[in-house]
């Protein structure tokens, strides 16, 4: 009696599962997951692709960035991954460890459209694990300095210094010319990128082949102390991004004179700085010393093909299409995302753009975060202790010791697996 409606439900569920991927005779349907703005704006390119490939229909599924990571893992566990997906390149290691991704190395070897030499090396590298390629960069992302050129000029700096010492001096000088209560730099304490980027400049984040955290090392401590010092000295406010309701207004008013952020803000600054529309610029991250140019984090999104896909050849055609320089230029116009290929930068004039130029320069000096599945969690842990130290709840050494302890605990399983592998 109770079972009958249940069985009925089950039948309906199974029936709908079967009906999911129905298509016309001979037509291949690709399921393509794209996130946020990309998912919204990629449609015109998809239509062009479909016009070129009459046998293929692409279903774009728009996913929110905040939950897509969980969704991908759940999809893998439930064996319902899409054919192609946009993919934060820091997730590649995780999904590769799961065996969820298709090895793209042979595809690229055969391909004429995807030419490794044309891509930014540091970005390409984020997709390479154990010498195999698991994703093709779709757009690139890194973090650089955005700053009020007029305030820096008033303080005596016509260009952003290139060393940390010079940078610190410049910030102190800027604070003197800022309106009262102003901060020379805004580094929201809820973002993991600033401490991570500074750390990438001086240290390896992990040691012993990714077995242990390397955060209490003098090399990482130098970067961490620099980061925390900005708050202790009052050069940066110890606030989270959610506390600032309108970054652009604060920038316009001169309350903040610089920040470390990503390429999407070029468009935002152009649109939303109304009082000082021309008094801002971008600059690469300064380096710890004069001999070591600053590096930033290799971010962005790749296109991956899932191992479980039944239409890998067609999926690769889509990846190739989206990797064409002229399509990438079009994509940049639609979204503002920066292309991963140097030829696209040059052909579109982006490389000479007043604001994008600094990104071009920085993209030549980007470093990937450790390519292990635990990286996302490690980055969050860095943020947690960075915030605690910035807010003055822990000393630098306490925070770093705790960070190491947490990261070592996160890596316990990895150590066990590596040791087991080593034993054969």
């Amino acid at each position: 009696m109770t079972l009958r409606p249940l069985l009925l439900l089950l039948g309906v569920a199974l029936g709908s599962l079967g009906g999911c991927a129905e298509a016309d005779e001979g037509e291949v349907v690709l399921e393509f997951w794209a996130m946020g703005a990309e998912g919204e704006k990629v449609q015109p390119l998809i239509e062009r692709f479909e016009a070129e490939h009459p046998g293929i229909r692409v279903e774009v599924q728009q996913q929110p960035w905040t939950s897509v990571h969980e969704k991908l893992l759940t999809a893998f566990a439930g064996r319902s991954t899409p054919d192609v997906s946009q993919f934060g390149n820091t997730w590649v290691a995780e999904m590769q460890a799961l065996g969820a991704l298709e090895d793209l190395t042979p595809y690229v070897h055969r391909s004429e459209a995807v030419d490794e030499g044309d891509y930014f090396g540091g970005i390409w590298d984020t997709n390479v694990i154990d010498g195999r390629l698991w994703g093709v960069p779709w757009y690139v992302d890194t973090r650089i300095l955005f700053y009020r050129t007029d305030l820096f000029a008033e303080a005596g700096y016509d260009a952003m210094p290139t060393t940390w010492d010079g940078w610190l001096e410049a910030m102190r000088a800027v604070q003197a010319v800022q309106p009262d209560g102003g901060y020379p730099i805004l580094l929201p304490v809820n973002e993991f990128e600033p401490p991570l980027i500074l750390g990438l400049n001086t240290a390896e984040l992990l040691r012993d082949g990714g077995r242990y955290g390397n955060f209490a090392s003098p090399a990482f401590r130098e970067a961490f102390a620099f980061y925390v010092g900005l708050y202790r000295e009052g050069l940066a406010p110890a606030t989270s991004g959610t506390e600032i309701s309108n970054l652009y207004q604060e920038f316009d008013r001169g309350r903040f004179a610089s920040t470390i952020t990503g390429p999407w803000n070029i468009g935002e600054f152009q649109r939303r700085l109304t009082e000082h529309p021309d008094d801002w610029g971008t600059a690469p991250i300064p380096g710890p010393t004069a001999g070591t140019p600053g590096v930033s984090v290799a971010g962005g999104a790749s296109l991956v093909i899932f191992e479980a896909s039944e239409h890998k050849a067609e999926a690769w055609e889509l990846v190739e299409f989206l990797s064409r320089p002229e399509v990438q230029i079009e994509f940049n116009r639609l979204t503002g995302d920066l292309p991963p290929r140097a030829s696209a930068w040059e052909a579109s004039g982006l490389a000479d753009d007043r604001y994008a130029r600094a990104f071009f320069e920085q993209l030549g000096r980007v470093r990937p975060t450790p390519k292990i599945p635990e990286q996302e969690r490690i980055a969050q842990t860095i943020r947690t202790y960075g915030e605690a130290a910035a807010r003055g709840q822990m000393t630098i050494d306490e925070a770093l010791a705790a960070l190491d302890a947490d990261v070592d605990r996160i890596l316990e399983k990895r150590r066990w697996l590596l040791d087991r592998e080593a034993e054969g």
Partner: protein
Amino acid sequence: MSTVTHTDEDLATTLGPPAAPVSAPRRTDPGRTDPGRGWRPSLPESAASRAALFFIAPSLLVIGAFFFLPVAAALALSLTDFDLYALADPGTARFVGLKNYVELAGDPDFWQALRNTAYFVVVGGPLSVAVSLGAALLVSSKLTRWKGLWRTVFFAPVVTTLVAVAVVWRYLYNAEYGLLNSALGAVGIEGVDWLGDPAWAMPAIIGLAVWKNFGYNMIIFVAGLAGVPEELYEAAELDGAGWWARFRHITVPELAPTFLFVGVITMIGYFQLFAEPYVMTEGGPLRATVSVVYLMYEEGFKWWNLGYASAVAFVLFALMMVGTLIQLRLQRSDP
């Protein structure tokens, strides 16, 4: 209805079905001497229980398959280190005994989540019940007009989608442009960064949760209030009892069973705090709004540490169990 019928009914229930216990044949069972259990159905016991089993079997099967089995599986999972690697290759899951529970006991994140949840339950729960009772009294009052309208209005937040509500509340709580801070500013109080300040984020979440949920308990209280005999108030009023005395000595004791139900349901619900911080603060600032369920979600679905997450789930279950038992005991000992 008059006082007389009321007493009649009472009398009838106390007497119970006449004579049945005595006339039924008493089975000689040395283990059972309880005089109250004399009544037996006319079927032999084995046949009766077989029939009963037959009738409840479908439900038992369903409950077994969809409740007990998953719970047992989760309990087993909590004794392993099932994680992302095990998702790829189940062979890498290790049996770790109680290690997850031991680690949990030493995990500052867990204690923080527990403190946050306790804060939410201890402050938010009673506040929510008090607001519900207040609203119920208002909409039940003889002086209130358009009772149906008010009930609907107060109940509306319960049936709205939390995510939509949270978006609006985020605007209300906005430090600079929010309605709440503007209102405070109008009376000369300096505003607070509600969702950005670790000290104020939880009160802000409690505010939203109480507003969102009080309507449900209000309806239960309204039903409870309708059951309080009017003549008790009349009698008390004749004896010169004021509003507070009537509330204290009639309303509260008469509502005792309602209080128990509302208290337990609210506590269980509030222990499971999740959606509010998920949409409002993502657990921040400084993890001030991470609840136990949020921690479980993070461990389970963000980091895919299913073993550890299952341990969190069982600890939460134990805590809620203890909380419920304490409430039952407290309310039973109440006069």
